[in-house]
């Protein structure tokens, strides 16, 4: 199996001059094609920043990143966005409040150069379990879970191979979270997708992924198989701490 995502010695900075802050330090990881990989850690540990660097939303980076064997430069081409798409954390903020579902999806499809937009919009809506009835609604007429489904549909519009998921369920209720996680599992099986998923919830990462990287202060402290994580076979103290904190949250 080839590597869908490979990151070597990645450094990311924000700000400039004396305000320079290094958010990611010497991070390296690889995700095999068709695999699902998790990034865990507390807020501010740099997990979302890695996703942002991959999509080109964090321009100050150094190191090597490649997608399906092609090295990324600081400028991304159309082909890149046809392969890699991102789903953001907060479905309340990531959809334009004055664009209907139809506008959101058909604009995306148009940008990717598809012709049969009408059919595709309906198909995307069916794919995420909503159906054509939702096509002319505005975000405020949708619940949080439905919005996240639209955000996933938008990411799927380009028929990507790799989805970057930035805490896709942390703004949702447990019951809705279950629906979205099931949907993501189904879509992965159906379209043969590769996932790189950020979450602070270890149970969610364990459910979705086979391997995970644990991050702290911008560094990857450990890359661990989920099976080992469940068995408590950690090599780094911090992972053990994190496991402990999520199991017994009332110390």
């Amino acid at each position: 199996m080839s590597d869908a995502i490979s990151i070597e010695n990645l450094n990311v900075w924000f700000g400039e001059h004396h305000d320079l802050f290094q958010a990611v330090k010497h991070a390296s990881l690889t995700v095999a094609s068709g695999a699902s990989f998790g990034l865990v850690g507390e807020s501010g540990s740099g997990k979302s920043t890695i996703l942002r660097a991959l999509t080109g939303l964090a321009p100050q980076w150094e190191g090597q990143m490649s997608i399906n064997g092609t090295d990324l430069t600081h400028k991304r081409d159309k082909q890149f966005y046809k392969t890699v798409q991102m789903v953001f954390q907060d479905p309340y903020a990531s959809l334009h409040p004055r664009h209907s579902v139809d506008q959101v999806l058909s604009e995306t499809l148009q940008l990717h150069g598809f012709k049969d937009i009408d059919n595709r919009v309906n198909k995307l809506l069916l794919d995420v379990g909503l159906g054509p009835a939702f096509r002319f609604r505005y975000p405020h007429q949708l619940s949080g879970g439905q919005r996240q489904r639209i955000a996933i549909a938008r990411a799927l519009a380009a028929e990507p191979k790799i989805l970057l998921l930035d805490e896709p369920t942390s703004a949702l209720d447990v019951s809705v979270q279950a629906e979205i996680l099931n949907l993501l599992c189904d879509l992965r099986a159906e379209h043969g997708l590769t996932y790189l998923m950020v979450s602070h919830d270890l149970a969610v990462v364990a459910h979705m992924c086979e391997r995970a990287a644990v991050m702290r202060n911008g560094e990857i402290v450990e890359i661990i198989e989920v099976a080992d994580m469940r068995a408590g076979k950690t090599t780094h103290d911090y992972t053990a701490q994190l496991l402990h904190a999520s199991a017994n949250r009332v110390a």
Partner: protein
Amino acid sequence: MTTLLDVDNLWVRFPNRSGVFDAVRGVSFSLGRERLGIVGESGSGKSLTGRAILRLIRSPGIVEAGHINLHGDNLLNKSEAEMRKVRGEKISMVMQDPKFSLNPVMTVGDQIIEAYRLHAKASKAEAYKKSVEMLEAVSIRDAERVMKAYPHEMSGGMGQRIMIAMMLIPNPEILIADEPTSALDVSVQGQVLSIMDKLVKERGMGLIFISHDLNLVSQFCDRVLIMYAGRIVEVCKADKLHEAKHPYTQGLLGSLPRFDAPRDRLQVLTRDPAWREAPSVEARL
């Protein structure tokens, strides 16, 4: 156990274009010196129940209840001025998001001092000293520096601890915590919860803990009310939550990904219309 608060047949209604929407529909419960959890999905009316107790629901929202008794004294009959004496001093509330509930243009210190001096006759110097102590009690290192800082300079976890300090400084009898940790990381969550737990135990307060996190509630509380569509569908002992009988509670528990018991698919709730219509369960002591 002595009853601190007794809520009888509480309704919260919002009139809209198509009639009246009932957000909370006839909820009755009482609270002693215990940790009472209220769980449910968003829109189940749990936060509104908390707000209604403090009479924080503004027009056009309508609050109706048989009574909301604090030590036998009906809060519904009080004037606004009398209510202000209750808020903070008798019952205080920690809101969900510290970013939106702290005053952005006042320093943390000034806000805490204000909260204290509204209820206690104290000089500024005393209030300052007391505020620093309170910040230290919620495990804020370097409290003197935090007193001078503005809320935007604080992280989420610190903001939430500041909120807790501010709510506890008038020494209330009842604390209502509305999702106090859902905006926080697991590691910080633990800290904030153990601080709350310690303070509640030491002061013998009653705590109403509103959350959508079932595992958390089952570990942290004594008794749990499960709300669905504005009604209480089940009451149980927190440590017996996993033996809950109502299909809704079971569904919520089943939809959680389990770290110790991996599954291919998560269970999805199928909602039975009968749950909406079933009468609310009384949750009196």
